[in-house]
C-alpha cells in the first residue's frame, strides 16, 4: 500500500531532474502522474524510462505560456478524472544578468517561467480542488526565495514572489482540505542548471560553472549539492495524508544554507 494510492498528480517540468524524481516517487507510492515538458521526444523517453504504463502520461507544453499550464491541469483531469496534487516545478533562467544589464525580454521570461506559471497553474488547480475540498499544491521554489545573489536578480525576485503567493493561498484555502506549500531546494545539479549554469556563472562574476557549484555548496553545512531524490521525498510527504496539517510551509532541502 502506497502513501498516494489513487491520487492523481501533475508536474510541470516533469520529464527530467527534480520533476522527474517527483514523478517516479509518486508512482512508487501508488499515484498516477501527468508529466509536462516542451519536448515530445523527451516526454516519450521519460514515459518509456518510467515504465508506469497507464499510471503515467505526458502533456507537451511550454510552462512559460498560460494556455500550456492551464492545458496541463485540464488534461490531467480529463485523463484521470481528478487532480489531487499539483506540482508547479518548472523554472529557471535563460540569459541572466545583473540588474543594470538585465534585458526586458529575460526579465519577462523569468517572471512568466518562475512566477506567472505558478499562479496560472495554482489558480486553475484550486478551481478544481475547492469544490472537492481536497488537494495539494506543491511549488518548487528555491533557497533563493529567501536569499539574494548578485547576477540572478530575476530568479531571486520571482522565487521570493512565489513564496509570498504560497503563503497567501495557503491562508485562503486552509479550511478547505487543501494545502499549499513550497519546497526550497539548495543547489541541485539539474539538466537546466547544466545548460544555463555556465552563462549564469559569468553573470554572477564567478567565471566558471565549477565555481558556481563551489560557491553554492560552500554556503551549505553539508558542503555538497542537494539531490533530486531528497526533494522528491519531501514532495511525497507534503502530498500524503500525513501532511494534511502542514500548509504555507517553506520546506528547506538545502543542506543548511538558509539562515531562517
Amino acid at each position, binding site marked *: 500500500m502506497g502513501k498516494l494510492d489513487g491520487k492523481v498528480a501533475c508536474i510541470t517540468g516533469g520529464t527530467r531532474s527534480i520533476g522527474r524524481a517527483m514523478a517516479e516517487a509518486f508512482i512508487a507510492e501508488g499515484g498516477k502522474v501527468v508529466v509536462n515538458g516542451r519536448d515530445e521526444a523527451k516526454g516519450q523517453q521519460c514515459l518509456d524510462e518510467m515504465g508506469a504504463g497507464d499510471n503515467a502520461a505526458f502533456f507537451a507544453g511550454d510552462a512559460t505560456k498560460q494556455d500550456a499550464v492551464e492545458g496541463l491541469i485540464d488534461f490531467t483531469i480529463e485523463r484521470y478524472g481528478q487532480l489531487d496534487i499539483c506540482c508547479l516545478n518548472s523554472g529557471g533562467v535563460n540569459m541572466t544578468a545583473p540588474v543594470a544589464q538585465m534585458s526586458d525580454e529575460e526579465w519577462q521570461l523569468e517572471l512568466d517561467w518562475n512566477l506567472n506559471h505558478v499562479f496560472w497553474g495554482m489558480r486553475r488547480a484550486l478551481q478544481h480542488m475547492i469544490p472537492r475540498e481536497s488537494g495539494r499544491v506543491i511549488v518548487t521554489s528555491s533557497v533563493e526565495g529567501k536569499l539574494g545573489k548578485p547576477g540572478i536578480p530575476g530568479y531571486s525576485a520571482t522565487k521570493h514572489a512565489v513564496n509570498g503567493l504560497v*503563503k497567501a493561498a*495557503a*491562508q485562503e*484555502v*486552509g*479550511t478547505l482540505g487543501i494545502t499549499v506549500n513550497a519546497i526550497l531546494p*539548495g543547489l541541485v545539479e539539474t539538466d537546466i542548471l547544466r545548460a544555463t549554469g555556465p552563462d549564469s556563472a559569468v553573470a554572477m562574476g564567478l567565471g566558471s560553472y565549477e565555481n558556481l557549484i563551489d560557491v553554492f555548496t560552500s554556503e*551549505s*553545512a*553539508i*558542503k555538497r549539492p*542537494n*539531490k533530486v*531524490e*531528497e526533494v522528491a*521525498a*519531501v514532495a511525497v*510527504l507534503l502530498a*500524503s495524508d*500525513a*501532511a*494534511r*496539517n*502542514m*500548509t*504555507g*510551509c*517553506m*520546506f*528547506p*532541502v*538545502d*543542506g*543548511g*544554507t*538558509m*539562515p*531562517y
Partner: protein
Amino acid sequence: MGVLDGRVACITGGTRGIGLAIAKDFLNEGASVVVNGRDEAKAERTLAELGAGDRAAYIPGDVKQREVCEAIVDGTVERFGRIDILVPNAGGSSGNAPVAELTDEAMQDTMVWNFWHTFWTMRRAFHYMIPQQWGRVISISSVEGKVGKPGLSVYVVSKHAINGLTKSAAHEVGTLGITVNALCPGAIETDTMMEQGPPAAESMGLTYDGLLDMFAQESAIKRLNDVEDCAAVATLLASDAGAGITGSLISIDGGTAPY
C-alpha cells in the same frame, strides 16, 4: 522493509504525546527505539501499547538533570549497541508570567527542561555519532521558537534557543553524515498541554479553551495540529532521504509561523 531498518533511536519524553507518536512511526519503519519518561507505570503502559518486543526499551529519568540526560543516551547505546537518531522531545513550561512579574526560578526551570536537556543529550549523542559518521538529531521546538507570545516568554525563549543551537550544530557536523533539525509544531492538545495549558492561559489572561482557540485561529487550517503530523516529518528527516536537510526549522503548524 522500512526506511529506518536497523536504526536505533532515543526519544526523551517518549511515553506519550508527540514522542510516543514518533516512537510508533520509527518502530513501524524498522527502527529500535528507547523511550524515556519519569513515570514507570506510564512507561509500562507505553511499552505494552507499542508491542514491539525487544525493539523497544524504556530508560527512566528526569531530563532536568544532566546526568540523567547523558545516561539516557549512554543507556541507548548499551541496550542497542549504537545511537543513530536522537529526538530531544521532553519539555514544557512552568511559572509562566509576563516578564515584569517573571521569577528567576520559572525562567531557569523551563530553560533546563527545554534547552539544557536538548543540549546535554545532543552533545552526548554527538560523541557516538561523530565517530560513526552518521546521525540524526531531531529536536522538538515549537512555533514559539519562531514567534513570541505575551506571557509565555519562558517557553518562547527556550524554544528560540533550541533553534539557534540546531542551526549552529548543523554547521559543525554537516560534512560528517549527521543532520540536526528542529520541528516547530503549532499547538497540539497533548497530555502535557492539558496539564500545563490552563496555568499558561491564565498568565495570558485567557481561559484554556480560549488559549486553544487563539492558536487555532492564528493558523490557516483553523484547528490544532496532531501528534501524527510531527511523526511523519520526523521519519522523513531520520531516513536516508533526509540526508540533504539540516539546520532546518520545519514548521508543522497549519500555516501559523510567518517564516
